[in-house]
């Protein structure tokens, strides 16, 4: 078994890895609650990461970096707004374009500015967000001797950068704005039925722009966090799909702030486990038993469904059972309690698989805002 301190260290790194997810997820929440789908979160995150790292490197001030990164992200938000709100273009296409724009421009500009193959130079101390140590927290050297409560306090609660705590505070703040203020009521309304907002004399365009700008700010903070706190410089494609995972978390959270926190912490935990443990071992009987249970669950679900359900889900169940039997077969000689190594890629893929399962509605249906994805055109 793993000891308490190791667990705390995993949770600590979960929190750190969840932070950018959480900020981006809340960015998506504001945007999508207002009826604007945002596939371009990834691009905004990446652009903000680059611009904040670049400015922090040049000026030596992480705050200027944060400001510049947020501005870059807001610019992309405004581009998305121009395309999808003002020009009533396709929100998905606009988001895809923004992702490529960020992926390409960051490298082109980084190469031109710093000539280091699309990186920024490493940030010195003023250019980074440093960990904040709470009063009385033990240093890591003496961590082993400290008591469990002290370990919890020092390892998990203390020692994060300001942006981690900011991200955590953003959750209740978002909840309050969304459900307890006039602005939140209007924002939720415009994502459900923009015509109701329009006829009530409120500007649909204004509301939607404000929502995408909030999203831009949050992505900006997230970008600054990954480039100036999680790492100490910008590297090519450093957002590494976090924008899409945040999108997945948003669906997982059913577009609600507190659920978003749980979803992001869960996904952060997967990444922490993945970086901490290179080999995850499970007894063979447990692994194949679990797979067979999943297969049986699928089969019992499709039993009375039509032939397409049977073909697709039954085929899936068959595939899973084949894997289960291959596992048993591979340990036949050494006994079924032998430990089997789970390839790390499966842990990495878990957030995506879970999101697909949620999307499929097998575990609670995720219903997006009703007017999401459609440009608002006044009826004739």
């Amino acid at each position: 078994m793993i000891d308490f301190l190791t667990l705390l260290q995993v949770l600590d790194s979960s929190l750190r890895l969840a932070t950018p997810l959480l900020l981006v997820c809340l960015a998506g929440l504001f945007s999508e609650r207002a009826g604007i789908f945002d596939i371009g979160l990834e691009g905004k995150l990446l652009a903000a990461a680059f611009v904040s790292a670049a400015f922090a490197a040049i000026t030596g001030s992480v705050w200027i970096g944060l400001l510049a990164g947020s501005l870059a992200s807001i610019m992309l938000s405004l581009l998305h707004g121009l395309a999808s709100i003002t020009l009533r273009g396709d929100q998905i296409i606009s988001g895809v374009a923004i992702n490529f724009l960020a992926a390409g421009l960051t490298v082109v500009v980084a190469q031109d500015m710093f000539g280091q193959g699309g990186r920024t130079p490493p940030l010195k101390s003023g250019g980074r967000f440093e960990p904040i140590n709470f009063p009385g927290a033990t240093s890591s050297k003496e961590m082993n001797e400290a008591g469990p409560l002290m370990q919890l306090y020092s390892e998990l609660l203390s020692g994060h950068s300001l942006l981690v705590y900011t991200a955590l505070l953003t959750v209740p703040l978002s909840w309050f704005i969304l459900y307890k203020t006039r602005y939140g009521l209007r924002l939720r309304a415009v994502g459900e039925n923009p015509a109701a907002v329009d006829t009530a004399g409120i500007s649909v365009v204004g509301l939607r722009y404000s929502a995408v700008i909030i999203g831009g700010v949050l992505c900006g903070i997230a970008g600054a966090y990954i480039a100036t706190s999680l790492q100490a410089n910008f590297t090519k494609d450093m957002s590494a799909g976090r924008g899409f995972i945040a999108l997945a978390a948003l669906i997982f959270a059913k577009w609600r702030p507190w659920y978003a926190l749980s979803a992001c912490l869960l996904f952060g935990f997967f990444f922490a486990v993945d970086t901490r443990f290179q080999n995850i071992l499970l007894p063979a009987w447990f692994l194949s038993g679990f797979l067979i249970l999943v297969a049986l669950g699928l089969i019992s679900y499709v039993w009375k469904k039509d032939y397409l359900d049977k073909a697709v889900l039954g085929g899936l169940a068959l595939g899973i059972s084949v894997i289960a039997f291959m596992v048993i077969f591979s340990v036949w000689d050494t006994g079924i309690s032998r430990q089997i190594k789970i390839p790390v890629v499966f842990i990495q893929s878990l957030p995506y698989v879970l999101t697909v399962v949620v999307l499929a509605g097998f575990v609670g249906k995720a219903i997006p805002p009703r007017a999401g994805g459609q440009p608002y055109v006044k009826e004739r």
Partner: protein
Amino acid sequence: MDIMPKWVDIIVVPFISVLIAAVLSALLIIAIGESPIAALNLMIEGTLFRSAGWGYMLYYTTNFIFTGLAVSVAFHAALFNIGGEGQAMIGGLGVALVCLFIPWPHWTLAIIGASIGAAVFGMVWAGLPAYLQAKRGSHIVITTIMFNFIAAGVLNFFLVDVLKPKGSMDPASANFPTTTHLPTFQDMASIFGFEKAFRSAPANVSFFIAILACAAVWYLIWRSPLGYEIRALGKSGPAARYAGVRPVKIIMIAMMISGALCGMMAINTTQGESERLILNFTEGAGFIGIAVALMGRSHPFGVLLAALLFGFLYQGGAELALWTKIPRELIVVIQALVILFTGALSLMVRAPLERFFMSLQKAKA
């Protein structure tokens, strides 16, 4: 009446969109401190004035035709297949399994087998999101994105844990047997005595399969009752239901055709070029398919032209990276601008044109 003549819609609008993208790219090149004209010259010389340049360009074009057609077929059914990347990866897995484990006597048979393998694997990978969309209403854009990531995981697993030859450190499969190797343009030119043409360029016979796919998709979409039903469902779901078109069936079929086309990209990259399965062989071609389909207005002929343009840009971009300080990523920026102006911002191009033609009509009346 339609406000604009059809030719404006089909030719002028995409042309202006691409022109805007080009101008913006030129500005970016100036900002970097290079000359856009010199850059364009370099791209043209490196691509069109050398047969090897053509060989590279057509190699890229082949990929983009497949993915562009795939996105187009889905577009006709009003489905956004953003999962071309994942479908191509899984298609590559299909190609590898077929080439490695079936003893093919000759490449002509191997390419048929590999095409089927690639198509079936891509089809299955697109079929799951299609099923979830058709039966469970899960948004296909999100599911296909997720499936891209899952596909990358699956490919990684197969290359690291299954297909990697013993003792190798490289996450790649063993080399395919020589009987599965496809003739390149260089091989074909040698038959006619031009041994020096297309030297070491990767373009191969798959290009002709891509051209055949264009023709097949054209017939499918514009001439067959199935294509009629795909287009009908894409334009109006309620109307399709009324006419006795089964939405579930059409969504499944359209996405599976789309997935099959993406998968078939792998015969070019995996069987034709690398001759073994490697990581990242798709190089973003699945996403470029979106730009190609948008620019080609989801018409196979338009897709062919757009794929040629992007093939040119990719080969030209490599030349730029080699001889100037403009990095290859400039092409990604151009690609983003093309998607932006032909897709999301198309109204910005169309609205002034529509106003112009409206005033023409008023002047006539």
